[in-house]
Protein backbone atom coordinates (compact mmCIF):
# COMPACT_ATOMS: atom_id res chain seq x y z
CA UNK A 1 0.00 0.00 0.00
CA UNK A 2 1.22 3.48 -0.78
CA UNK A 3 1.24 6.10 1.90
CA UNK A 4 -1.69 8.50 2.12
CA UNK A 5 -3.14 11.11 4.43
CA UNK A 6 -6.11 10.08 6.48
CA UNK A 7 -9.05 12.34 7.22
CA UNK A 8 -12.09 11.65 9.29
CA UNK A 9 -14.53 14.51 8.76
CA UNK A 10 -17.33 15.01 11.22
CA UNK A 11 -19.83 16.54 8.84
CA UNK A 12 -20.92 15.94 5.27
CA UNK A 13 -19.97 19.48 4.48
CA UNK A 14 -16.47 18.98 5.74
CA UNK A 15 -16.21 15.69 3.84
CA UNK A 16 -17.37 17.35 0.64
CA UNK A 17 -15.00 20.24 1.02
CA UNK A 18 -12.07 17.88 1.68
CA UNK A 19 -13.02 15.85 -1.37
CA UNK A 20 -13.03 18.96 -3.50
CA UNK A 21 -9.85 20.35 -2.03
CA UNK A 22 -7.62 17.30 -2.00
CA UNK A 23 -6.45 16.16 -5.39
CA UNK A 24 -6.66 12.40 -5.86
CA UNK A 25 -8.45 11.85 -2.58
CA UNK A 26 -10.77 8.89 -2.16
CA UNK A 27 -13.85 8.59 -0.03
CA UNK A 28 -13.95 5.43 2.02
CA UNK A 29 -17.12 4.02 3.52
CA UNK A 30 -16.85 0.25 4.09
CA UNK A 31 -13.75 -0.01 1.95
CA UNK A 32 -14.45 -3.55 0.80
CA UNK A 33 -13.48 -2.82 -2.81
CA UNK A 34 -11.15 0.05 -2.07
CA UNK A 35 -8.86 -1.61 0.44
CA UNK A 36 -7.93 -4.58 -1.80
CA UNK A 37 -7.03 -2.14 -4.60
CA UNK A 38 -4.86 -0.21 -2.15
CA UNK A 39 -3.19 -3.38 -0.91
CA UNK A 40 -2.32 -4.48 -4.41
CA UNK A 41 -0.91 -1.02 -5.08
CA UNK A 42 -3.42 -0.63 -7.87
CA UNK A 43 -4.54 2.69 -6.51
CA UNK A 44 -2.53 5.59 -5.20
CA UNK A 45 -4.81 8.13 -3.58
CA UNK A 46 -3.05 10.94 -1.80
CA UNK A 47 -5.69 10.96 0.90
CA UNK A 48 -8.48 8.82 2.26
CA UNK A 49 -11.56 10.56 3.56
CA UNK A 50 -13.25 8.21 5.99
CA UNK A 51 -17.01 8.75 6.17
CA UNK A 52 -17.53 6.56 9.21
CA UNK A 53 -18.05 9.46 11.61
CA UNK A 54 -21.13 10.66 9.78
CA UNK A 55 -24.05 9.02 11.58
CA UNK A 56 -26.49 11.14 9.60
CA UNK A 57 -25.63 8.95 6.61
CA UNK A 58 -26.78 5.85 8.41
CA UNK A 59 -30.21 4.40 9.00
CA UNK A 60 -33.35 3.01 7.46
CA UNK A 61 -36.75 4.67 7.44
CA UNK A 62 -40.07 4.21 5.76
CA UNK A 63 -41.35 7.45 4.24
CA UNK A 64 -44.77 7.09 2.68
CA UNK A 65 -44.46 4.47 -0.02
CA UNK A 66 -40.67 4.61 -0.03
CA UNK A 67 -37.95 2.94 1.94
CA UNK A 68 -35.12 5.36 2.51
CA UNK A 69 -31.72 3.95 3.31
CA UNK A 70 -28.76 6.01 4.41
CA UNK A 71 -25.66 5.70 2.25
CA UNK A 72 -23.52 4.41 5.09
CA UNK A 73 -25.93 1.65 6.02
CA UNK A 74 -24.15 -1.70 5.87
CA UNK A 75 -25.48 -4.51 3.71
CA UNK A 76 -26.02 -6.70 6.76
CA UNK A 77 -28.14 -4.01 8.36
CA UNK A 78 -30.35 -3.81 5.30
CA UNK A 79 -30.57 -7.59 5.10
CA UNK A 80 -31.72 -7.81 8.72
CA UNK A 81 -33.89 -4.69 8.87
CA UNK A 82 -37.44 -5.39 10.00
CA UNK A 83 -38.63 -2.31 8.12
CA UNK A 84 -37.08 -3.53 4.90
CA UNK A 85 -38.30 -7.08 5.42
CA UNK A 86 -41.83 -5.80 6.01
CA UNK A 87 -42.03 -3.26 3.22
CA UNK A 88 -39.57 -4.26 0.54
CA UNK A 89 -38.30 -7.77 1.30
CA UNK A 90 -36.58 -8.11 -2.07
CA UNK A 91 -34.12 -5.45 -1.02
CA UNK A 92 -33.18 -7.41 2.09
CA UNK A 93 -32.60 -10.39 -0.15
CA UNK A 94 -30.38 -8.42 -2.50
CA UNK A 95 -28.35 -7.13 0.43
CA UNK A 96 -28.09 -10.60 1.94
CA UNK A 97 -26.52 -11.93 -1.24
CA UNK A 98 -23.78 -9.34 -1.69
CA UNK A 99 -20.19 -10.57 -1.32
CA UNK A 100 -19.91 -12.69 1.78
CA UNK A 101 -20.95 -12.30 5.36
CA UNK A 102 -17.93 -10.33 6.53
CA UNK A 103 -18.14 -8.06 3.51
CA UNK A 104 -21.80 -7.41 4.27
CA UNK A 105 -20.86 -6.38 7.78
CA UNK A 106 -18.60 -3.62 6.42
CA UNK A 107 -19.78 -2.80 2.92
CA UNK A 108 -22.26 0.04 2.50
CA UNK A 109 -25.04 0.92 0.10
CA UNK A 110 -23.43 4.22 -0.84
CA UNK A 111 -20.03 2.65 -1.38
CA UNK A 112 -21.45 -0.08 -3.56
CA UNK A 113 -23.39 2.19 -5.87
CA UNK A 114 -20.68 4.84 -6.06
CA UNK A 115 -18.27 2.09 -7.12
CA UNK A 116 -20.80 0.73 -9.64
CA UNK A 117 -18.96 -2.50 -10.29
CA UNK A 118 -20.42 -3.99 -13.45
CA UNK A 119 -21.29 -7.17 -11.55
CA UNK A 120 -22.58 -5.63 -8.32
CA UNK A 121 -26.06 -6.40 -7.00
CA UNK A 122 -27.32 -3.08 -5.64
CA UNK A 123 -27.24 -1.28 -8.99
CA UNK A 124 -29.74 -3.84 -10.29
CA UNK A 125 -32.01 -3.16 -7.33
CA UNK A 126 -31.84 0.61 -7.78
CA UNK A 127 -32.47 0.43 -11.49
CA UNK A 128 -34.99 -2.38 -11.16
CA UNK A 129 -37.08 -0.41 -8.69
CA UNK A 130 -36.57 3.05 -10.14
CA UNK A 131 -34.97 4.30 -6.94
CA UNK A 132 -33.72 7.81 -6.37
CA UNK A 133 -30.23 8.65 -5.14
CA UNK A 134 -30.01 11.68 -2.92
CA UNK A 135 -26.66 13.41 -2.63
CA UNK A 136 -25.51 16.43 -0.71
CA UNK A 137 -26.41 18.37 -3.87
CA UNK A 138 -29.43 16.88 -5.57
CA UNK A 139 -31.69 13.92 -6.30
CA UNK A 140 -30.62 11.62 -9.12
CA UNK A 141 -32.97 9.00 -10.51
CA UNK A 142 -31.37 5.55 -10.86
CA UNK A 143 -31.92 5.72 -14.63
CA UNK A 144 -29.51 8.63 -14.74
CA UNK A 145 -27.17 7.54 -11.97
CA UNK A 146 -25.35 4.56 -13.48
CA UNK A 147 -23.60 5.97 -16.51
CA UNK A 148 -21.07 3.32 -17.48
CA UNK A 149 -18.54 0.81 -16.32
CA UNK A 150 -17.61 1.92 -12.80
CA UNK A 151 -19.06 5.29 -13.70
CA UNK A 152 -21.83 7.27 -12.12
CA UNK A 153 -23.37 10.70 -12.39
CA UNK A 154 -21.60 11.75 -9.19
CA UNK A 155 -19.47 14.87 -9.49
CA UNK A 156 -16.29 15.55 -7.56
CA UNK A 157 -17.16 16.45 -4.00
CA UNK A 158 -20.63 15.01 -4.35
CA UNK A 159 -21.47 12.58 -1.58
CA UNK A 160 -24.36 10.15 -1.54
CA UNK A 161 -26.63 10.73 1.43
CA UNK A 162 -29.33 8.14 0.91
CA UNK A 163 -31.30 6.12 -1.57
CA UNK A 164 -35.07 6.10 -1.71
CA UNK A 165 -36.59 2.87 -2.95
CA UNK A 166 -40.26 2.80 -3.96
CA UNK A 167 -42.10 -0.17 -2.53
CA UNK A 168 -43.08 -2.72 -5.12
CA UNK A 169 -46.27 -4.63 -5.65
CA UNK A 170 -44.00 -7.54 -6.31
CA UNK A 171 -40.36 -7.93 -7.06
CA UNK A 172 -37.57 -10.48 -7.12
CA UNK A 173 -33.88 -10.68 -7.78
CA UNK A 174 -32.22 -13.81 -9.12
CA UNK A 175 -28.48 -13.95 -9.23
CA UNK A 176 -26.33 -16.53 -10.96
CA UNK A 177 -23.04 -16.28 -9.19
CA UNK A 178 -19.55 -16.29 -10.56
CA UNK A 179 -18.30 -19.41 -8.78
CA UNK A 180 -15.05 -17.75 -7.74
CA UNK A 181 -15.85 -14.14 -6.89
CA UNK A 182 -19.50 -14.64 -6.00
CA UNK A 183 -20.30 -11.47 -7.90
CA UNK A 184 -23.17 -11.76 -10.36
CA UNK A 185 -22.23 -13.59 -13.52
CA UNK A 186 -25.69 -12.40 -14.40
CA UNK A 187 -28.29 -10.99 -12.03
CA UNK A 188 -31.81 -10.04 -13.01
CA UNK A 189 -34.07 -7.81 -10.96
CA UNK A 190 -37.76 -7.70 -11.84
CA UNK A 191 -40.34 -5.48 -10.22
CA UNK A 192 -43.88 -4.37 -10.62
CA UNK A 193 -44.74 -1.10 -8.97
CA UNK A 194 -47.90 0.90 -9.43
CA UNK A 195 -48.45 0.47 -13.15
CA UNK A 196 -44.79 0.13 -13.88
CA UNK A 197 -42.72 -2.94 -14.67
CA UNK A 198 -38.95 -2.89 -14.60
CA UNK A 199 -36.33 -5.45 -15.54
CA UNK A 200 -32.73 -4.61 -14.67
CA UNK A 201 -29.71 -6.74 -15.44
CA UNK A 202 -26.32 -6.67 -13.78
CA UNK A 203 -23.15 -8.64 -14.45
CA UNK A 204 -23.90 -9.10 -18.10
CA UNK A 205 -22.65 -5.87 -19.60
CA UNK A 206 -20.18 -3.12 -18.66
CA UNK A 207 -22.97 -1.41 -16.73
CA UNK A 208 -26.32 -2.36 -15.27
CA UNK A 209 -29.11 -1.90 -17.82
CA UNK A 210 -32.85 -2.28 -18.32
CA UNK A 211 -34.49 -4.68 -20.74
CA UNK A 212 -37.28 -2.60 -22.18
CA UNK A 213 -38.82 -5.25 -24.39
CA UNK A 214 -39.14 -7.58 -21.42
CA UNK A 215 -40.69 -4.78 -19.40
CA UNK A 216 -43.21 -4.19 -22.13
CA UNK A 217 -44.11 -7.84 -22.41
CA UNK A 218 -44.45 -8.16 -18.65
CA UNK A 219 -46.54 -5.02 -18.41
CA UNK A 220 -49.17 -6.67 -20.55
CA UNK A 221 -48.79 -10.04 -18.87
CA UNK A 222 -46.70 -10.49 -15.74
CA UNK A 223 -45.83 -14.14 -16.28
CA UNK A 224 -42.62 -16.04 -17.09
CA UNK A 225 -43.89 -17.24 -20.44
CA UNK A 226 -44.37 -13.65 -21.56
CA UNK A 227 -40.60 -13.21 -21.80
CA UNK A 228 -39.51 -16.76 -22.56
CA UNK A 229 -38.63 -15.85 -26.12
CA UNK A 230 -37.08 -12.47 -25.50
CA UNK A 231 -33.33 -12.49 -25.85
CA UNK A 232 -30.94 -9.69 -25.11
CA UNK A 233 -28.53 -9.84 -28.05
CA UNK A 234 -25.06 -11.05 -27.14
CA UNK A 235 -23.31 -8.31 -29.12
CA UNK A 236 -22.73 -5.89 -26.32
CA UNK A 237 -22.57 -8.32 -23.43
CA UNK A 238 -19.47 -9.21 -21.47
CA UNK A 239 -17.31 -12.12 -22.40
CA UNK A 240 -14.71 -13.31 -19.95
CA UNK A 241 -13.09 -16.41 -18.53
CA UNK A 242 -16.23 -17.47 -16.73
CA UNK A 243 -18.92 -16.83 -19.29
CA UNK A 244 -19.17 -15.87 -22.90
CA UNK A 245 -21.64 -13.31 -24.19
CA UNK A 246 -23.90 -16.00 -25.70
CA UNK A 247 -24.17 -17.78 -22.39
CA UNK A 248 -24.85 -14.53 -20.58
CA UNK A 249 -27.53 -13.67 -23.09
CA UNK A 250 -29.13 -17.05 -22.49
CA UNK A 251 -28.90 -16.66 -18.72
CA UNK A 252 -30.66 -13.30 -18.79
CA UNK A 253 -33.75 -14.88 -20.27
CA UNK A 254 -33.65 -17.86 -17.93
CA UNK A 255 -33.09 -15.77 -14.83
CA UNK A 256 -35.64 -13.15 -15.81
CA UNK A 257 -38.28 -15.85 -16.05
CA UNK A 258 -37.23 -17.22 -12.70
CA UNK A 259 -37.38 -13.76 -11.22
CA UNK A 260 -40.89 -13.28 -12.52
CA UNK A 261 -41.85 -16.63 -11.09
CA UNK A 262 -40.34 -15.74 -7.75
CA UNK A 263 -42.03 -12.34 -7.75
CA UNK A 264 -45.36 -14.00 -8.41
CA UNK A 265 -44.90 -16.56 -5.68
CA UNK A 266 -43.72 -13.91 -3.28
CA UNK A 267 -40.60 -15.85 -2.42
Amino acid at each position, binding site marked *: *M*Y*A*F*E*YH*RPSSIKEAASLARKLADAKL*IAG*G*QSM*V*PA*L*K*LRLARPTA*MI*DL*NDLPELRGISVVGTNVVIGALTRH*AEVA*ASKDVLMTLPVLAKVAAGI*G*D*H*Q*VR*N*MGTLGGAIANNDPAADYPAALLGLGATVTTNKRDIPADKFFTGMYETALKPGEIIASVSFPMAKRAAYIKFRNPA*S*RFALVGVFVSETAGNVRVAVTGAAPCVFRVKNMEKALASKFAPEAIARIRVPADNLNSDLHAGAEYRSHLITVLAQRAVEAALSGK
Partner: protein
Amino acid sequence: MGIPVSMTVNGKAVAAEIEPRTLLAQFLREHLRLTGTHVGCDTGQCGACTIHLNGRAVKACNLLTAQAQGAQIVTIEGVAAANGELHPMQAAFRQHHGLQCGFCTPGMVMAALDLVKRQPNPTEDAIRAGLDGNLCRCTGYHNIVKAVQTGAAAMKG
Protein backbone atom coordinates in the same frame (compact mmCIF):
# COMPACT_ATOMS: atom_id res chain seq x y z
CA MET B 1 3.33 10.66 9.47
CA GLY B 2 1.54 8.88 12.23
CA ILE B 3 -2.06 9.12 13.31
CA PRO B 4 -3.31 8.16 16.74
CA VAL B 5 -5.69 5.24 17.12
CA SER B 6 -7.27 3.74 20.16
CA MET B 7 -9.59 0.79 20.58
CA THR B 8 -10.40 -2.05 22.90
CA VAL B 9 -8.91 -5.39 21.95
CA ASN B 10 -10.04 -8.47 23.83
CA GLY B 11 -11.20 -6.27 26.66
CA LYS B 12 -8.01 -4.26 26.96
CA ALA B 13 -7.69 -0.65 25.91
CA VAL B 14 -4.92 -0.12 23.40
CA ALA B 15 -3.61 3.06 21.83
CA ALA B 16 -0.89 3.61 19.30
CA GLU B 17 0.40 5.96 16.69
CA ILE B 18 0.37 4.30 13.31
CA GLU B 19 0.90 5.00 9.65
CA PRO B 20 -2.52 5.60 8.06
CA ARG B 21 -1.88 2.73 5.63
CA THR B 22 -1.66 0.16 8.43
CA LEU B 23 -4.23 -2.58 7.98
CA LEU B 24 -6.10 -3.76 11.04
CA ALA B 25 -4.69 -7.27 10.57
CA GLN B 26 -1.20 -5.82 10.48
CA PHE B 27 -1.87 -3.77 13.59
CA LEU B 28 -3.10 -6.81 15.49
CA ARG B 29 -0.29 -9.10 14.30
CA GLU B 30 2.68 -6.79 14.28
CA HIS B 31 1.94 -4.07 16.81
CA LEU B 32 -0.02 -6.10 19.34
CA ARG B 33 1.63 -9.46 18.46
CA LEU B 34 -1.77 -11.15 18.35
CA THR B 35 -0.68 -13.57 15.66
CA GLY B 36 -3.79 -15.75 15.82
CA THR B 37 -5.37 -13.50 13.21
CA HIS B 38 -3.97 -14.91 9.98
CA VAL B 39 -3.59 -13.42 6.54
CA GLY B 40 -4.28 -15.82 3.71
CA CYS B 41 -5.03 -13.57 0.77
CA ASP B 42 -4.77 -10.02 -0.46
CA THR B 43 -8.15 -9.55 -2.08
CA GLY B 44 -10.53 -10.10 0.83
CA GLN B 45 -11.84 -13.60 0.10
CA CYS B 46 -10.22 -16.18 2.37
CA GLY B 47 -11.49 -14.96 5.72
CA ALA B 48 -8.53 -16.26 7.75
CA CYS B 49 -8.24 -12.78 9.26
CA THR B 50 -11.83 -12.65 10.53
CA ILE B 51 -12.25 -10.85 13.84
CA HIS B 52 -15.18 -9.19 15.56
CA LEU B 53 -15.55 -5.45 15.28
CA ASN B 54 -18.25 -4.13 17.58
CA GLY B 55 -19.69 -7.62 17.68
CA ARG B 56 -19.74 -8.25 13.94
CA ALA B 57 -17.42 -10.50 11.97
CA VAL B 58 -15.23 -8.54 9.58
CA LYS B 59 -12.03 -9.21 7.69
CA ALA B 60 -9.17 -7.52 9.49
CA CYS B 61 -6.98 -7.52 6.39
CA ASN B 62 -9.64 -5.62 4.50
CA LEU B 63 -9.87 -2.75 6.95
CA LEU B 64 -7.65 0.16 7.70
CA THR B 65 -6.78 0.28 11.37
CA ALA B 66 -8.12 3.81 11.38
CA GLN B 67 -11.54 2.48 10.40
CA ALA B 68 -11.59 0.63 13.71
CA GLN B 69 -11.00 3.78 15.75
CA GLY B 70 -12.85 3.49 19.04
CA ALA B 71 -14.14 0.01 18.28
CA GLN B 72 -14.49 -3.05 20.45
CA ILE B 73 -12.35 -5.75 18.85
CA VAL B 74 -12.33 -9.41 19.70
CA THR B 75 -9.75 -11.71 18.13
CA ILE B 76 -9.36 -15.47 18.42
CA GLU B 77 -7.09 -14.88 21.41
CA GLY B 78 -10.06 -13.37 23.24
CA VAL B 79 -12.51 -16.22 22.74
CA ALA B 80 -11.49 -18.84 25.32
CA ALA B 81 -12.17 -18.28 29.01
CA ALA B 82 -9.60 -16.44 31.07
CA ASN B 83 -8.45 -19.73 32.59
CA GLY B 84 -7.78 -21.08 29.13
CA GLU B 85 -10.84 -23.25 28.91
CA LEU B 86 -12.11 -23.47 25.37
CA HIS B 87 -15.29 -21.67 24.37
CA PRO B 88 -18.03 -24.19 23.45
CA MET B 89 -17.55 -23.36 19.77
CA GLN B 90 -13.83 -24.00 19.98
CA ALA B 91 -14.49 -27.21 21.87
CA ALA B 92 -16.93 -28.30 19.18
CA PHE B 93 -14.33 -27.74 16.48
CA ARG B 94 -11.96 -29.99 18.40
CA GLN B 95 -14.61 -32.60 19.09
CA HIS B 96 -15.63 -32.86 15.46
CA HIS B 97 -12.21 -32.46 13.90
CA GLY B 98 -13.31 -29.23 12.29
CA LEU B 99 -9.73 -28.17 11.70
CA GLN B 100 -6.62 -29.68 10.20
CA CYS B 101 -3.71 -27.34 9.46
CA GLY B 102 -5.28 -24.71 11.71
CA PHE B 103 -4.53 -21.75 9.49
CA CYS B 104 -8.11 -20.88 8.52
CA THR B 105 -9.33 -21.95 11.95
CA PRO B 106 -9.24 -18.66 13.87
CA GLY B 107 -11.20 -16.93 11.12
CA MET B 108 -13.55 -19.86 10.81
CA VAL B 109 -14.30 -19.86 14.55
CA MET B 110 -14.87 -16.10 14.57
CA ALA B 111 -17.21 -16.39 11.59
CA ALA B 112 -19.04 -19.30 13.20
CA LEU B 113 -19.60 -17.34 16.41
CA ASP B 114 -21.11 -14.48 14.45
CA LEU B 115 -23.26 -16.90 12.48
CA VAL B 116 -24.68 -18.48 15.61
CA LYS B 117 -25.40 -15.08 17.06
CA ARG B 118 -27.60 -14.35 14.03
CA GLN B 119 -29.06 -17.84 13.76
CA PRO B 120 -29.03 -19.74 17.04
CA ASN B 121 -30.36 -22.91 15.40
CA PRO B 122 -28.69 -23.01 12.02
CA THR B 123 -29.50 -25.78 9.56
CA GLU B 124 -26.71 -27.41 7.56
CA ASP B 125 -27.57 -25.25 4.56
CA ALA B 126 -27.59 -22.12 6.68
CA ILE B 127 -24.16 -22.96 8.06
CA ARG B 128 -22.74 -23.63 4.63
CA ALA B 129 -24.20 -20.38 3.31
CA GLY B 130 -23.19 -18.47 6.42
CA LEU B 131 -19.55 -19.47 6.07
CA ASP B 132 -19.36 -18.01 2.55
CA GLY B 133 -16.64 -15.63 3.63
CA ASN B 134 -14.17 -18.28 4.75
CA LEU B 135 -12.03 -20.66 2.75
CA CYS B 136 -10.72 -23.91 4.16
CA ARG B 137 -8.53 -26.07 1.96
CA CYS B 138 -8.14 -29.01 4.38
CA THR B 139 -11.43 -30.19 5.77
CA GLY B 140 -13.86 -30.10 2.85
CA TYR B 141 -16.05 -28.26 5.41
CA HIS B 142 -17.87 -31.48 6.37
CA ASN B 143 -16.64 -31.47 9.95
CA ILE B 144 -16.77 -27.70 10.24
CA VAL B 145 -20.50 -27.89 9.58
CA LYS B 146 -20.89 -30.51 12.30
CA ALA B 147 -18.77 -28.47 14.68
CA VAL B 148 -20.84 -25.34 14.16
CA GLN B 149 -24.05 -27.28 14.75
CA THR B 150 -22.68 -28.73 17.96
CA GLY B 151 -21.17 -25.42 19.01
CA ALA B 152 -24.49 -23.67 18.43
CA ALA B 153 -26.33 -26.21 20.55
CA ALA B 154 -23.74 -25.96 23.32
CA MET B 155 -23.93 -22.16 23.33
CA LYS B 156 -27.61 -22.35 24.16
CA GLY B 157 -27.11 -24.88 26.90
